Structure formats: C-alpha cells, structure tokens
C-alpha cells in the first residue's frame, strides 16, 4: 500500500509575524519555516500505519514549491518517509490549484490513501483536501482524530462541533487530519543519518501540463490591530459599569 502525504512549507506561526511594508506578503528574512503542523500529524499517522501493518506500506511525502522546500522534505524523510517528491515551481498556488497538482501526482503514484492536514496554518483555507477528493471522486473524511483499518476500508473518527462522528469508507480515500490524531515524533539519530542518503525526487510543474486556474488572489495583507493594554478594575461594580457603559457588551 502506498500512502501519499502532501506537506506544505509554512512559517512557524509561534514566531512574531510581520506584514511587509508593501502589504503584499510577510517579512520572512528571519522567519523559521516548518512543515505545516497538521501535515506533520498526517505524516506521523502514515508512519504509524506502516509500523502497524503487516503489509508493505510506502510513505511518500509530496511538496509543491521552490527548491527551499527541500529542507522540509528532508525533515519528512528524517521522520521516516520512504520517499519525498518535490513539484518544483516558483508560482503561488491557491487551494484549488494545489488540489489539481495533487490530482496529477495521485494519478501517477496510485496511492490507496492520501493523508493530509485539514488546513495549513499560514492561510487556514481548509479546502485542498476536499477539492482533491472531489477531483478524484474519492470518499473523504475531514478532521480525523482516529483512523482504523477495517477489512475492506477504513473507519475514521471526525471531530465535529456536535461531537465525534464515525464514518466508514472504502479505499482509495482522502483523509484530512486534526490536532488530536497523534503527536508527531522527533527523528532518531539513525533515521536522520539514513535520510541524508535518500534522494529527493523532483518533477517540474511545467511537465505536469496543468494550466493554472487562479481563483484566489491575495490583494493585500494587514496586521491585526495591536491590542491596547488592559486596565485593573477596583471591584465588581466598576467592572459591570465599564462593561455596560464603555464596552457596551452587557
């Protein structure tokens, strides 16, 4: 079985993020980049499936972007991915076009499962997985908090606002992962050393014969307004009157 894990390279959102002076992006000079945390969870799940399976399971990490992306794919290999594939392009891809690229890669690689983050923490779109499932006409389960293999498919627990929803699906399928699915591992020393010898496969975006269909264009970015400092109130009465008269929330 082959599991395809699309990963996105995103800025580490725990760092201070600044919008560029021209409002067209963020300042990334000092910014560390990481594998999108939800994709790291997807990768971890794929590795666990491989470890628990009696069959041969191959975990393929896929990235779309410029050569800088290699660093994150190298991380995926160190964590234990069997292969890493970079679709090289300097273009910007919105979720629709990400899904279209992945559709072509899925056709080439024939995975039985695509495991990916429910969203990327840079744009929080939460669309690519759903688009991909629709393009492939595969069943999908989003926000997975548990994945189990059954005789002829998988059972997925989905985290919804109403509680845990359990769905059964046939394979091949697309599953997007939520925070509580697992906790990604750190790479072991032998695994890091082994990964340095693994190649990163590359395919040029131009070779895929996809005409970009941009549907989302970023017009401008702005930082959220700075929060003003809090004030200490003397007692409950003052709190109530301030909430009523100043904040006008009660």
């Amino acid at each position: 079985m082959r599991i395809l894990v699309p990963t996105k390279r995103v800025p580490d959102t725990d760092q201070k993020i600044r919008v560029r002076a021209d409002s067209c992006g963020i300042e990334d000079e000092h910014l560390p980049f990481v594998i999108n945390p939800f994709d790291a969870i997807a990768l971890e799940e794929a590795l666990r499936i491989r470890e628990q399976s009696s069959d041969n399971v191959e975990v393929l990490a896929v990235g779309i972007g410029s050569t800088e992306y290699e660093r994150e794919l190298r991380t995926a290999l160190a964590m234990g991915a069997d292969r890493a594939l970079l679709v090289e392009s300097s273009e910007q891809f919105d979720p629709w076009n990400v899904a279209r690229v992945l559709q072509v890669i899925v056709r080439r690689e024939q995975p039985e499962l695509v495991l990916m983050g429910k969203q990327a923490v840079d744009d929080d779109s939460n669309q690519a997985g759903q688009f991909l499932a629709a393009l492939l006409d595969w069943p999908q389960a989003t926000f997975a908090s548990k994945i189990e293999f059954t005789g002829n498919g998988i059972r997925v627990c989905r985290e919804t606002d109403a509680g845990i929803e359990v769905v059964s699906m046939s394979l091949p399928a697309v599953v997007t992962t939520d925070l509580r699915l697992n906790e990604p591992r750190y790479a072991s020393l032998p695994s890091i050393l082994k990964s340095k010898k693994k190649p990163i496969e590359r395919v040029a975006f131009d070779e895929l014969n996809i005409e970009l269909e941009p549907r989302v264009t970023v017009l401008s970015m702005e930082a959220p307004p700075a929060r003003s400092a809090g004030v200490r109130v003397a007692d409950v009465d003052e709190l109530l009157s301030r909430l009523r008269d100043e904040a006008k929330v009660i």
Partner: protein
Amino acid sequence: MPTAIDTTDVIVIGGGVAGLSTAMQLGMRGSSVIVLDRAQLGSGSTGRAAGLLGQLRGTAAATKMLMDGVEVVKDLENRTGTEIYVQTGSLRVAETPERAQEIVDLVEMGRAIGFDIDHLPIDKVAEKLPYMKTDDLIDACYCPTDGHLQPAELVSAYIKVGKSHGVQYRPNCPVERVLIAGGRAVGVKTADGDLHAATIVNAAGPWSYLVAELAETTLPTAALGHYYLTTRPDDAHPVDRFSPAVRDRHHRIYTRPESGGLLVGIYGAETIEYDMEKLPADFDMSAMKARFDDIQVATLIHAAQQRFPWINERTSMTITTGIMTFTPDGKPFCGTMPHVEGLFHCSGFSGHGIVQSPTIGVIMADLILEGGTQYDLKTIEADRYFDIPGFQERAAIKSKCYQMHASYYGRVEGK
C-alpha cells in the same frame, strides 16, 4: 513613562534571575534600583532553565555559595509563601571506573566540608528510581539536600520582595547605549529616554557581551544552545514528584521530575552557537522551537534512552530549547573591569544561573555597596581575562567557551 531624566542609585540591565536577585538585595539594603529588560522579566534564559541544584561543586568555596543560596531561597519562601525549592535529593551515577573514582573523590571532598553525601548501593538506587536502568552501574552517590529550584516561582519571589523594597521594573525597555563620562558609567540611553545612575549592572545573560560592547568592554561570554526534553506523565513509568535528580556525566545527561513526567537535559559534545546581534530585535527565546529532525534533539533522545530505555523518539514529550551564556572556564563574571568604573558585570553562569542567583545577588550587593564580600571571588572576578591575549576577539572567545561547554560533562569534577 519617564519624561526627561530619571536618576536612581543602580540600573540593572536584564530582568533574569541574576539581575532580579541583585536588584532585590540592593533594594533590601536601601538602594533605589530600576531593572530594565528588553522584553518581559524572566523571558530569556531564566524562562527556559531546568533549575537543577547540585550543591557540591569542584571547590569548597563554590559549594558554600550554593549552600548559602538555599538559605536565601528558604527565606524567600517564607516571605512570599510560595514553594521554590523542591528538595528531591540528587544522585550521581557511574558506569565506568573513571566515573566511579570521581564519585569516591566527590564523597571525600563533600564530607571534608561537612556536606551531606554518601555512596549509595546500586540496589538502593534502583529502589529510589524504578524507572531508571541500573544494571550497568558500578557506583553512585546520593546528596539528600539537593533538588531543584522552580525558576518561575523564583522570578516571582524576587520581584515580589524587590517591589516591597521599592525596586522598579521596566520591561520592554531595551538599552541602546551605556552613557560614560570620564571613565565612569553614568547611565543608559533607552527608547523611553535617558536614565542616570552611579552604578550600572550588566545582567543581560546571552546579550551581556553586547551590553559590554556598548561600554567598549570585551566580556568573554558566548551564547550556546541548550536542549531538554520533558516526558508527559505515563502510567507505565510514574515519576514521583520527589524522585531524586540524576546526573550521568558519561551519557552527558541530567534529569529531574517535572509535572509527573521526567525532564532530561544534555550537555552535548556539540551544540549551536548564537550571535545575539544577528537575531531579530524582538527575538523571543520562549518561542524557540526545535525542528523534528534537529540533530541535537536526536542526540538528546538517544542519550536519555541509554539511562531510561523507555524513552525514544516516539515518546510523548515536549522539547525545550533555549540559549545559555557560557564562559571560557564555566564560571560567571561578577564585578567591574579596570577601565570603566561603576559598570558591574553579572553574567556567564554557564547553565547554573538559577541556582547561583540567590547568593550572586548577595555578592553583587556586597561589591556594589561595600566594595568587597565575605565570599571567595577569585574564580568569578569579572576581570580575570581582561587584556589577556586570546580572550579579546569574538571568534577566539566563542571557540574557548564552546570547548568549555563540550567538555563540561566530560571533565572530572575538581580537576
């Protein structure tokens, strides 16, 4: 907000434990003190520290300093009603004849100065630490009065007691210049305006060499990366809150209990060097994060696994990484340099800032107010590398500090 000019007796640059302790002691003795920090108080190395307290050091003087520090902490606990010192006891373990001899020497030295220490049979070690591998050990020693200081609680106590003695704290106030007149430090320039004082304390931790440079002074410290892991509580390997700390120099690790899990840190043969001037102005140490394929983390996990075989890369844990301030000999710099009067350095604790800080505050206040102290300063004088060739260039300084770090857990204590 200050408007024009502010004047106090002492300005402390750096709101980590070294600066906060110094400020508190000065305040308690009647000085007017203001503490400036580039960010939040306790947000630098202090906020990333494990806080292990092993009182027995290579010399009697260094040991006495730490033992006295415990008394300062107990007094702070009484004044603030918080638990800072967790007395778990500590173990040193040996798996090679050289390490076993080290333990023999340590026990002998400890007893000679009246420190509570004794050999502990391996079966007793196994009883105390059921979650630790012991079958390869040949000797161990136990110090019942050791433990760890809780860094956050210590910071709060320093501030609480400092405030009650009039110490002022100004976070988010980076120092842009040290003002010097006639060979004397007379104040600092900040974005909020100038502050004047006859005494300036450079307690800026990893940034302290940059503060020294503002006064055209070379402070031979280097900023080095440090890593520890903290496992989440695991029913299969319960870690009691009062399980002894362990030092295993052979594997370069130290451990202590933390919130039901085990904290394991490493002084590796290799680590990351940081140039603080190259980090963003608003660099936040608390947001530092290790990559999933960080070789330092992999080395840490590997080392931890040698002593705690149930820990591996898949163990549920958090990784904490931060920056330490190392010196060429692993001892801090406390005091002035010959060419700038009134500028006191207090930095370079080489991974032991939390536990040294209680006494260091006393020493700094002694030096500043009385010009001397009962403590033996020989090994911690700030000017011990002043004008000494080989300790003036950043590259050479970094290399010497790096070597010190690399050999820290390799070296035999006291030699």
